[in-house]
């Protein structure tokens, strides 16, 4: 069935179809209409789900942790400052290996007060042990949420997963989305089997004191799980393609086969870059696009190109664009551009200009300070 709706409503629909038993959320700005729609489903008795309206985003994540620890599937959604308030509990969910799925709408961090697209909120949660997906269209939002559950809950992984997409550009924009039947979703996504759970018949303590050596083993286990997640993401993306006709992997490669230069970016910027690549190709430029679907685990092995033009809609002050700097360790040449912060529009024409500047060996803040 084709549904035309905003990414927020599509995310809520995907969450509903994944059948979480518990959703917890805080409903005030910068929260989006995702949880409003979820609450509506619960009100209409459309779902078998406990909806907990908590007093803060920190509590939203805590409630999800508690619910997931009893062995049930959980969901929450947030954005920008809400995600930042969760920070401590994001680490907790990761270290507790609870496969909570969360949707985050990428919105700028204040002050000044700005609710437009900016990836800094999610990018600054990169070390919390969450798998991070970025969507470029409402279809990718739907498919991403469904797959996120299967990937996060895989017993080689057991890590929480976050699906992010740009504020307004996707969140409040209606697009057609192909939505499979509930039966097909159920066949793809079986019931959640927890890695551990609180059970009064078999009492355990979780979060007890852990001396140095076992603590390091826990961290090592997380790192290994992230590495294994790369394989699982590819496998689940392939299975999804076989069932629903849309294939996914760690990255999306567009017209990269004979490319001398590739543009590397993610989220809505990647959607825009498709048009830029097509127009540049028409003019005979050998250019492709690598759309990073996953930021954690970071798909280093997919970034084997001689010249990579990286566009960051995020900034690590004192370092630069986060993506560009994470890629500096790769053998290829990296041209880093910071663009579009706080929702500044970056059109395909801007991306064509960025390409031309990179071809001159330049990089920097687009458009004001490129050297």
């Amino acid at each position, binding site marked *: 069935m084709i549904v035309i709706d905003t990414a927020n409503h599509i995310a809520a629909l995907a969450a509903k179809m994944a059948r979480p038993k518990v959703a917890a959320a805080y409903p005030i700005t910068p929260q989006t209409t995702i949880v409003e729609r979820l609450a509506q489903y619960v009100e209409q008795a459309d779902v078998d789900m406990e909806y907990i309206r908590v007093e803060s985003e920190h509590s939203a994540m805590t409630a999800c942790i508690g619910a997931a620890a009893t062995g049930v599937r959980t969901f929450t959604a947030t954005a920008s400052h809400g995600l930042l308030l969760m920070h401590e509990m994001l680490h907790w969910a990761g*270290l*507790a*290996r609870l496969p909570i799925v969360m949707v985050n709408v990428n919105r700028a961090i204040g002050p000044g007060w700005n609710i437009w697209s900016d990836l800094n909120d999610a990018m600054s949660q990169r070390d919390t042990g969450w798998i991070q997906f970025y969507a470029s269209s409402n279809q990718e939002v739907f498919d991403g949420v469904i797959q996120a559950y299967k990937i996060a809950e895989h*017993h080689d992984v*057991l890590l929480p997963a976050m699906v992010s997409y740009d504020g307004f550009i996707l969140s409040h924009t209606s697009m057609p989305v192909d939505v499979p039947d509930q039966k097909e979703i159920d066949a793809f996504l079986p019931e959640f089997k927890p*890695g*551990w759970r609180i059970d009064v018949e078999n*009492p*355990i*303590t*979780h*979060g*007890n*004191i*852990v001396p140095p050596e*076992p603590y390091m*083993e*826990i961290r*090592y*286990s997380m790192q290994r*799980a992230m590495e294994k997640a790369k394989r699982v993401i590819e496998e689940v993306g392939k299975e999804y393609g076989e069932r629903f006709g849309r294939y996914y992997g760690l990255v999306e490669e567009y017209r990269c086969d004979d490319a001398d230069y590739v543009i590397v970016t993610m989220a809505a910027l990647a959607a825009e870059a498709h048009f830029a690549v097509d127009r540049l190709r028409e003019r005979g430029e050998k250019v492709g696009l690598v759309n990073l679907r996953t930021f954690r685990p970071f798909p280093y092995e997919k970034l084997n190109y001689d010249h990579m033009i990286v566009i960051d809609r995020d900034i690590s002050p004192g370092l630069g664009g986060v993506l560009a700097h994470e890629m500096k360790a790769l053998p290829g040449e990296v041209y880093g551009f910071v663009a579009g912060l706080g929702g500044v529009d970056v059109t395909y024409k801007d991306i064509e200009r960025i390409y031309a500047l990179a071809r001159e060996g330049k990089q920097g803040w687009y458009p004001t300070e490129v050297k």
Partner: protein
Amino acid sequence: MKTAISLPTKGAMGKTGTWRVFRPTIDLEKCIKCWRCWIFCPDAAIARNEYPVIDYDYCKGCGICANECPVNAIEMGREEK
């Protein structure tokens, strides 16, 4: 998958009774056997017998039992050297 899980084990942190500064003593004549001390003891160091029995090997002397006792049957006295 590794995470911070432990199974219930008696004395996993050693005999924590040595941490005690104040020692709870139950006056059995006052005790009404309501078992609030037993429920509230965070270290499960109070057993249910005919009357509550404190396990001084593990009681840290936190005083929660004395605080919860509705008839003030538990007295906290300074631990002798």
